[in-house]
Structure formats: C-alpha cells, structure tokens
C-alpha cells in the first residue's frame, strides 16, 4: 500500500523519540546528572547513543588510545635521576616509523666522543605522523608512548608542528596516570618500576656484592 513505508519510517523515528523518555523514566532521570552515570550514557545500556557535550564533558580516552607519541622521562622528583630521559637513542623507533617522521641525534659524550644512552635531540613532525603506534610498540625501553592529548589545533604550522625533545617529554607519572594497567604490565615485564638500564645496573651491583 502506498504510504505505508512512510508511516513505518515515521514510526521508527517516533519509537526512538519515545524511547529516550522511557529510558529517562527507567533511570529515574539520574542518568543525566551524576558523573557516575556517564558510562551508562555512553555504553550499551542506552537504546540509542547519547551526545557527548564535548567541551563540558570530555570522553576520557581508553588506555590504549593513541594520538601523537611522547617521550617518557623520569619524574622531576626522582631521587637519583630527576628528569632523566628513558630513551637511550637506540633509534628503533626512527627505523620502524612508517612515514619516517622521527629524527634522532644520538648523544655523544663531549669528552670521550663515545655515544651515551641519551638522545641529544629528538624531533617528531606531527604533520607526517600517522598515529600508528609502531614506535611505542617496538621501543625496548618503554620510552616512547602514545599520548592522549588530542587538543592540538593551532593557527600556524610552520613553527609549532615539529615537536622537539622538550615538547615531547613528559614525566613517567603522566604515563602512569593515563594508562595505569599498561604501565603496570610493562613494569612487570621489565622487572620493576625503574628504567630497564637502571634495573640492569642494580642487578649487576647486587651480584657484585654477593660475590
């Protein structure tokens, strides 16, 4: 019958419309207000999908979320190595990066000229980075991680879009705060919360003492 399709279509829309109110009643109007109800709003319990009121309520990103990478450094209040880079400038991220947007200058000891395990400079061109996360995946020192900060819009790209080491570095506790579970898993695999090199050093010292 002509017209039945339109009526049925309107029916579907109407159902959606009514359902939102029914759901509201079902949740006692609570799902709008308290912050704890946010997972309910954004999960599968709603029958449709709720709008994220972006600037007022921002979706916290999943632990695995990846945007631009950042470099992990020791906390600034670390007793022995405050602000020390975790990166040892081994160059694996620069080699694995698909669009080749990482540039690393390996650090050299100014006196001996021998390489030291710390980068002198580290650049990422965020105009090229494809947020693939391979650098973080293959870093053997857990020193480069994917950031959750996506609010990077700017008016100018010539000066601001090549991130240097200073712009990239973030404290280790920041990583712990955005991805606690993963940080813990990594620490377990490493054998402690410290940097891999430090752990090795400590193991060596302990062994020397034993002997």
């Amino acid at each position, binding site marked *: 019958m002509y017209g039945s399709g339109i009526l049925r279509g309107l029916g579907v829309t109407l159902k959606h419309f009514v359902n939102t109110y029914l759901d509201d009643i079902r949740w006692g109007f609570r799902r709008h207000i308290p912050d704890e109800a946010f*997972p309910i709003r954004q999960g599968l319990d709603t029958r449709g999908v709720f709008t994220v009121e972006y600037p007022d309520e921002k979706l916290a990103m999943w*632990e695995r979320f990846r945007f631009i990478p950042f470099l992990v450094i020791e906390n600034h209040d670390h007793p022995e190595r405050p602000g020390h880079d975790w990166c040892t400038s081994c160059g694996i991220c620069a*080699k694995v990066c698909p669009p080749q947007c990482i540039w690393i200058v390996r650090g050299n000891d100014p006196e001996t000229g021998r390489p030291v395990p710390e980068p002198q400079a580290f650049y990422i061109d965020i105009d090229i980075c494809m947020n693939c996360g391979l650098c973080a995946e293959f870093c053997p020192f857990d020193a480069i991680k994917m950031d959750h900060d996506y609010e990077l819009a700017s008016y100018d790209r010539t000066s601001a879009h090549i991130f240097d080491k200073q712009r990239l570095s973030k404290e280790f506790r920041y990583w712990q705060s955005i991805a606690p579970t993963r940080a813990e898993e990594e620490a377990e695999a490493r054998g402690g919360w410290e940097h891999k090199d430090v752990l090795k050093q400590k193991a060596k010292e302990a062994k020397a003492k034993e002997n």
Partner: protein
Amino acid sequence: MTEQVPTVETASATDSALSLLEEKFKNAVRRDDREGYDGLIVDPAKLVEVAAAVRDELGYDYLASAQAVDYLGAGDHLEMVYNLYRTTGGPGLALRAQTPRDTATLPSLVSVWPGADFQEREAWDLMGIRFEGHPNLQRILMWEGFHGHPLRKDWKEAYYEQDQKPFDSRWPDGNVWRSEEHNAYGKNVVYPEGFTLDGYEPVAEDAFYDEANLGVDIRPSDLDTDRIVVSLGPQHPSTHGVFRMIVTLNGETIERLQPVMGYLHRNHDKIGERNTFLQNMPFTDRLDYFCSLSNNFGYAVAVEKLMALGKRWEPPTYRAEVIRVLMAELTRILNHLVAIGFMLNDMGAYFTPLMYAIVERELILDFFEAVTGSRMMCNYFRFGGVAMDLPAQMHSTANLLNERVREFDTMQYLRELINERLPRAIDQTDDLLTTNEILTNRSIGVGVLTREQAIAHSAAGPVLRASGVPYDVRRADPYSIYPDLEFDVAVRDHGDIYDRYLVRVDEMRESVRILKQVLRLLGETEGQPFFSGRGGIYSPRVPAGEAYGRVENPKGELGFFVVSDGGQNPWRYHVRAPSFINLTALETMCKGHKVADVVTILGSIDIVLGELDR
C-alpha cells in the same frame, strides 16, 4: 542462499593447466620456475588465445587481479601477472606475460575479460605498458599529460630520498627538515628539464571530452531531446568522495558514462615498495577507511603466504585467528550498515538512515578504540597474530584533560553488542527499509548486472553475489578459521540495486551468526597466546617469491599482490581493490537509466575512494 562446497583438487592447478596448454600451444606456454613463484609464462604473441583457452576450456572464468611488475635489474623486463580463479571455487592460476622495458607492449585482454579494462589502464598509467587492442587506453589515476610512469623502478619523485626505508638521515644524526625545503619550488613538484609555461596547453581535461562530444550537440531525433555532456563531481555530495563521472545524456537518459578517478591517488604502491613489510600495515588501514581491520587481514594473509615459504615460520595461533575473525566480521556489519545508509542518502532519504547506522557504528568503534587504540586506523594485525590481546577491561582514566571515565568488561560488552544491539539494529534497518515503497520503486530492476556480465567484469562482493554467483572468498578459497565456522553465503538472483541491498542485509545476519560462534571460541581460547612469533621483531624475514593473498572484504575481494626479493622491503606491492574493479561494470549498469539512477547505482556498488584510487 546456498551452501557452497569448495572443490578439492589433487594435482596442482598449474600442473594440470600446463599439460593441457602445452598440448595445444606447444612452446608458447612454459612453467615459471623461479624460486617462490608459481604459474605459467605465456608468449605475448599467443596471450589472447591462451587466455581464451584458459577461460573456456579450463574454466578459469574470473580474472581476480591483473598487475604489472618491473623487474629492473632482475631480468630487466616488465611482467604482467593475471590471477585467475574459477567462480566455482578452488585454487587459482597465475598467467604471466613478459615484455622488454623499452618497447613495453602487450596484447590487451579486454576482449577475453572485460574486467581487465581498468587494470590495464592502470598498468599503462603507472608502468607504461601499452596494451594493443585496448578500447580506451588513457591514463586512469594520473592525468593525461603527466610525465613518466611513476611505478617504474627508475622513476623518482620530487621528494625522493632513498630507495628503501629506514632512511639514513633519521638516525643517528637526525637532521630535521621538511621536504619542501629541499625543493626549488617549495612544493612536491618536479618538471622535465627546460619546461616553461610559455605556450603550454594542458591536455588533461580535453582528453575526456574529445571523445565524449563536448557541449550541446543538438541532433534531430524522434524525441526532441538534446545530447549533453555533464561532468558529475569530483566535488559532489553523492559521489561518495572525490569521484567523478562524465556522462553523456540524451535528455535524461544515460548514453555513455566515463568514470574519472585518481583524485585520491595517494601512491600506496610506490610508497609500499619503499616501506618495510611491517610499515605497510598502517598504510593498509587507509585504503578502505571504513574497514581498516579487514584490510589488515588481507595484507597479513598475503605476507604470511610468502613467509610460509621460509623455514622458521609459525602460522598464527588459534586465538589470533579468532580475534581476527571477530574484528573482520564486526567490520563487515559496520560497513554494510553505513553502506546502506549512504545508499539511502543517494535515494533522497537524506541522512536519517545514515544517522541510525552511525549510532551502531560508534558502539563498534568504541570497542575498536579500546582494543586497538584508534577508532578508524586500527593497525592491529601482525604477521603471525595480532598486536595485543583483547583487554580484560575496556578501561579509561581521568586526567587533566578528559575527566569522563567509562569502564566496561570487554566480554560483557561484546556479548551485549553481538547478542542485542547489532541484531536489533539490523532488524530495524530491515523493518524500516526492505518493504519501503520508495526504496523498492527506485531499486527493483534498476542497475541490472546479469550473472555473465558480473563474472566477465570481475565484479566482487555483494555486487557479484547479488547477480546470482555464490562466490565468497571465505568459502571459495578459505583462509583463517572460516572453514570451521558455520555460515551461508548470501546470494540473490536479479542483480539489481534491491538485491544488492538484500545481500548486504543477509550478510549482516550471517556475520552475527559467525560472531556468536566466535564469542564462544573467544571464551575457550582465553589466555592462549595471541602471537606466534617472538615479539619485538620489526623487520621480519620474508623469503623471495610472489604471493597473491585475498580475503573477502565487505566491499568484495580484497587482494594483496606482494613480490619479495628476500630483502626488507617488498619489491612490488599491489592492491586489488574491490571498489576499483567493481566500477568497471558501472557503465554497463547505468546505460539506459535516468541520470538520477546513476547516483543510486553508484551507491549500491558501495565504493570508497581511499581504496578506489589507492
């Protein structure tokens, strides 16, 4: 719907083909005995006849993919490879024809398989192989007048740095620069020597219109109509991106239709040859950007085929395969929902069905984001498994920026998604649309592609299956754990828009059926390894050889043609994109219909530009 049983062959497909062809063509056909290669090398002079015999007598009626390879320094010839299959299923046959690099001429196979049309044009455009007898040998991805054939190994682009990644300039003395700084123009351009604009006449646009009778051409006809040429796109709300069609209209009726593409040609092939094998994985995400995970699947299957030739190769673990299928099927549902939404958009149901589709899409994307790290560009598969296991909890934490926390149990989320939300969404789509008279009036009998035409034009996916060919790579050439899973191949017979729509709906239901089995398997394999190799290897060894790996993507057969010379990087990397090849049949489908139907027909093919132009 029919259940399709793959034919099991005892002798190798190449062997049996060779014995028959040798008898007939004597020396024109020989076996390809390079290490890691399979298939037959055919004398170009006899290519058309051999191809016809292969099609008619051996039953290889389906030209899945045709691509050219430049063997510079390894024989110094160009090679055209045709991957042929039977629509009844079973293993494939690779035909090859070689030609010297300087003359580079081969006979065209369009007369045997019309589906070779665009693929040969691509080979001409990018490799510079001239196909004799091709009806319209123009550039397809680049524009007419472009200098050089970019996929040749000795062709260098403006921002060329080094043949292979990783580039030396990145480490240990990374001297950061933007490529623009090294170019005299500050842009990604390079001109032939001594080129100036004085007196230069660009030919790019004229090339289309010369042939299409530009302008109003009033001819007496019994119905008093004008013949005009309309350029539809590339910026047009219903071309699904930057796609363009040049249509010759007689009144409102389509007389000719010429798809123009390449507006999103991002040089996947050229970049892919420079990347290492692993580095290509995130690039495949960007092919069909609705289905990044199934693109990953295709690429992983192709490279794993090659790696299996090597000694120390462990196939992906069972859990890895289960996760892969989970991802691929979720992607299929997501894609079909959105495809139906877009198709309805084109019919005039502006945005409402699409909005409903996007609701479910967001929920699936949330899952993808929690598991892989990104909504769209998942980059999740690795050779031998997947990058990470499913997390026990989909978990987020508040920080300075983002304070609204969500926390779900992954399995619980999946169970609810698969058992409740998705079936409900599919039912709703079905309920809303299937009997809707606007949809039925606009789609039944429109854009018909018969069974024979569909096979000849190498159509794939829902387009092929809606024409009555029960051909689904998951059944015809099984990969992963699909043989263990129970599902039917959705088939319809009329080959019109409506049947393509119905096939999509059926397929979504089958996907839900698969997903329910996968859920069980996920529970059973909990805790098992998700990766077969050793972790941390960023440059896996891939033995020399050639592989064509294919999977059933939501849009059709997605194939990756990979040639390795044993090094870190693929020697040749080619994508058989279903969107691209399905368009070969567009003109056939559109002829005789009204101009408003073109948009709907295009919508029913379900193209995505990232894959179409690569």
